[in-house]
């Protein structure tokens, strides 16, 4: 619906300016945050160890991310396997 904004003639309200600015600031703030609970690094190490029992993967093969969406916490995990196997 973004294109609808072009049809609006009135200038942006200060509240919507505030919201836009906050979104940027908060996103930036969350980047530096130790995302998720403290056990996350340990969890990552252990998963890496388990994966290595079956496939040889580099240290950065396991990627864990915690995201919060509308009061819900989503744990996202990515395991990159090597190309030639």
């Amino acid at each position: 619906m973004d294109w609808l904004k072009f049809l609006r003639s009135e200038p942006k309200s200060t509240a919507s300016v505030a919201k836009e600015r906050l979104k940027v600031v908060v996103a930036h703030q969350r980047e530096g945050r130790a995302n998720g609970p403290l056990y996350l690094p340990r969890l990552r190490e252990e998963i890496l160890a388990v994966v290595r029992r079956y496939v040889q993967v580099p240290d950065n093969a396991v990627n864990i991310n915690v995201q919060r969406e509308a009061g819900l916490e989503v744990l996202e995990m990515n395991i990159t396997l090597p190309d030639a196997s």
Partner: protein
Amino acid sequence: MAKIVVVTSGKGGVGKTTTSASFATGLAMRGHKTVVIDFDVGLRNLDLIMGCERRVVFDFVNVIQGEATLRQALIKDKQNENLFILAASQTRDKDALTVEGVERVLGDLAKDFDYIICDSPAGIERGAHLAMYFADEALIVTNPEVSSVRDSDRVLGLLSSKTRLAESGAGRVKEHLVLTRYNPARVAKGEMLAVEDVKEILAIPLLGVVPESTTVLTSSNAGSPVIANPESDAGKAYEDIIARFLGEEREHRFMTAEKKGLFGRLFGN
């Protein structure tokens, strides 16, 4: 087992103490044995808002340092026999609070009380850290204003990492948004962030909206928590907050501006 609830915000002046006082009073009015602790060492104010400033003999720091017993330091509320206040000390430095000391006092209180409300100081220093450290649940008091929302987000980051629940991996502090000083008329004019905007940015569940109200000031003048004034919108809003916190379904109110009559529309601003 007592439930420990921290009232926090990061930013000062958003309504933490007002909320702590009304929240604790509301729980006690419902028959729950409740104690509210002022963690703002050096700048105590909860006693004033609760109207018991002249009855403070011993304080939180006295108890931590073994100079007084809990029984001596707890102030019983005059209106409500289920409600007790533990004042902050006015003179000591902030280092007087220690993790072990706070843990011991909270442990002792937990034997006798259903709810322990921790009124956090502003900022993210020692007092604020210790107020949230042992919490099971948190009320994040936020104003619909950029600096308050940003600070609340910072505090959410701390709640999810620098608390005992988070550090032990045993779970997480349950977060509740309390949006205070809300002015629906200004929101309608696009001059103030709307509830939905703040909810979207902070991404935590809304416990309640407290409208900007003249009664908050008159109540604090008189040393009576605003929830004790059931006629006022703010008092009603806090009563709703208690009900929702205790699991009742209550529709949110005070979120839309009252309709102006024809006269108001013609001559109002």
